């Protein structure tokens, strides 16, 4: 993972008119790394990808590939391949011709590409044979050999997606850019193709920047996940880390399904975050070095919520509905104070005999309570020895 040998974007800024799309985005992918760029639609991730491809130019910032500055180079001169959401296959060309086109454009001269005449120019034959071999090889890798003579219109969505991958793969580029390549596939095929793309990436070892709005896709495929919101990169980290240790409330909310539970709390005189709860406020987190009265939110993942008997130090909740999902059950709860919905992910055994309307006390391990400041930034809490216990 030599620094600067992969694909790097430094301080990218982009405005469309008065609208700021990207503000100072820096993202470095090491050689051979698979980075998933994830965020809600309109967050600027596709724009960032187009800037990496050379289809758009940044107002500020630098694009580097293999340690070289390619900011001013047009897409055709960058050694980067892209897979489009719409696949963007040439409808009039066969699969074979679609896959050969990027090679023909690079290896054959203008004259050699002329119909009829080009065939008789010196070198055309040898180059054409080489192109045919590369296409056959890529087609074999993707197992689309039997489709080579069809046109895109005769292919299913999944097959088109493979051809689009093949067209990118065939020229062995230094980097792959993928713009939501799975969003037009049905759910089953999507999960299947996910694995295939990861496998393909493992074989080819090409630096990949993968744009998606699906956090599950990002978590399951990437070496590192980059979460983007409103034109700002909030966090770049390996999937497990970004899930366990989100640095921003928006990241915590975006990553993970069902969504993280967020409970409003206020810092009290002794540095505890206290959630309003009728007559008995409950201290959720201790040892905060914040002035009294500071509002914070406490994030708790649904799988970390346990339902216990009501007690003074447990937030009282009422069960409203159980959602059975097979291996797990989602318990939809309502926080008694503030009518805030809370979701708990439980195993089926835990919910035996539970009925809607019952009251519980909400319990979690202190380490599973994430504290976020009002501006969304995460506040780290040092577990204090002896005070980690549940009681405030």
């Amino acid at each position: 993972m030599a620094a600067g040998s992969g694909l790097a974007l430094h301080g990218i800024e982009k405005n469309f008119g008065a609208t700021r799309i990207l503000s100072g985005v820096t993202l470095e992918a090491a050689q051979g790394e698979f980075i998933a760029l994830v965020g809600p639609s309109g967050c600027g991730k596709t724009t960032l990808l187009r800037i990496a491809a050379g289809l758009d130019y940044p107002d500020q910032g630098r694009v580097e590939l293999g340690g070289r500055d390619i900011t001013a180079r047009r897409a055709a001169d960058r050694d980067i391949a892209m897979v489009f959401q719409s696949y963007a296959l040439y409808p009039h060309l066969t699969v074979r011709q679609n896959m050969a086109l990027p090679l023909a454009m690079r290896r054959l001269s203008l004259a050699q590409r002329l119909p009829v005449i080009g065939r008789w120019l010196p070198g055309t034959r040898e180059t054409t044979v080489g192109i045919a071999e590369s296409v056959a090889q890529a087609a074999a890798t993707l197992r689309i050999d039997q489709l080579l003579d069809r046109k895109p219109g005769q292919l299913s969505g999944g097959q088109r997606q493979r051809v689009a991958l093949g067209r990118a793969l065939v020229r062995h580029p230094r980097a792959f850019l993928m713009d939501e390549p799975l969003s037009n596939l049905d759910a089953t095929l999507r999960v299947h193709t996910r694995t295939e793309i990861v496998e393909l990436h493992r074989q080819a070892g090409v630096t990949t920047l993968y744009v998606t709005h699906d956090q599950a896709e990002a978590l399951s495929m990437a070496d590192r996940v980059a979460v983007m919101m409103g034109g700002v990169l909030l966090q770049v980290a390996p999937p497990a880390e970004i899930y366990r240790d989100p640095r921003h409330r928006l990241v915590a909310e975006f990553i993970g399904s069902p969504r993280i539970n967020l409970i409003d709390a206020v810092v009290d005189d002794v540095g505890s975050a206290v959630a309003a709860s009728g007559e008995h406020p409950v201290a959720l987190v201790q040892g905060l070095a914040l002035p009294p009265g500071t509002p914070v939110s406490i994030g708790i993942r649904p799988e970390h919520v346990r339902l216990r008997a009501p007690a003074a130090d447990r937030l009282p909740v009422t069960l409203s509905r159980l959602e059975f999902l097979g291996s797990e059950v989602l318990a939809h709860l309502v926080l008694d104070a503030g009518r805030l919905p809370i979701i708990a992910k439980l195993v089926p055994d835990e919910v035996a005999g539970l009925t809607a309307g019952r009251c519980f006390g909400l319990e979690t391990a202190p380490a599973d309570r994430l504290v976020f400041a009002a501006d969304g930034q995460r506040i780290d809490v040092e577990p204090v020895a002896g005070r980690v216990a549940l009681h405030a």
Partner: protein
Amino acid sequence: MPDGSGLPEGIVLSSAARAMRRVEARAAWGLAAPTLVLMAILLVLPTIAVLLLSLTDWELGAAHLGFVGFDNYVELAHDRTFVTSLRNTLIFAAIVTPVSVVLGLGAALLIEAEPIGKTFFRTAYFMPVVSLIVAMATVWQYLLHPTIGPLNALLRLAGMGGPNWLGSSDTVLVSLAIIGVWQAVGFNMVLFLAGLTAIPRDLYAAAEVDGVKTGWDRFWTVTWPLLAPTTLFVVTITLIQAVKVFETVATLTQGGPSKASEVLLWTIYQEGFVYLHVGYASAMTIVFVAILMVVTLLQTRVLERRVHY
């Protein structure tokens, strides 16, 4: 079960289902009836009437009508005016169609490429389409006038003697073709503009990433192939319009000089409305319609298969 129900053999419908089908069929015919009647009255019957008239020697207003079989058609084949007319029409169409299609496409590409002045140029090029050609013909007559016309004045400035554009049998067809092109370019341009906007932007981005660098390569890789359905339509429409040339001939040359601008519709008009040889004119009309039918069939049958993906 060859009963016309369209069902595979061996499938027998219950009586209720059969009754339902009958009701539906009756309703369908009832709904289609007004259109069918109008089509018969306005399209089918007149065509049959012309076809029948073309087999007679009827003259407008004559009390007698004699059946002459294919005599009219035999006469057509030996009629030098008609043969000249047919040849002139084809030459006219052979000039106007390719030139106006290429210019229309060129104009569309230029307008599409340039963000400034789009509306102005689109309107300017479309003017000839909406203007009255009979009125505009006088402008052309002035432009092409051998002595006072600006075109020849320009040529004289360059030291060349301009021809008598509309007055000489060598140049009259070309002059009419120039006017024909002027008329057709705007319409073709608008059609091409519509076709261009329908090309997905992603394809251009993909082509760029694939290493397509020059405008030339971009045109042949993406634009031209994806415009193919539009081009086919434009060519057909232009061809049909060109074969139907009439107004400029009627107002500017009346088929002259010495039949050098004699075209099909003008000849038919002369025979039918001036000499009142309705039977003979009908035979010409049938030939004329046959040409248009061939063009249309060529479009739908042969070319469409190769152009739509």
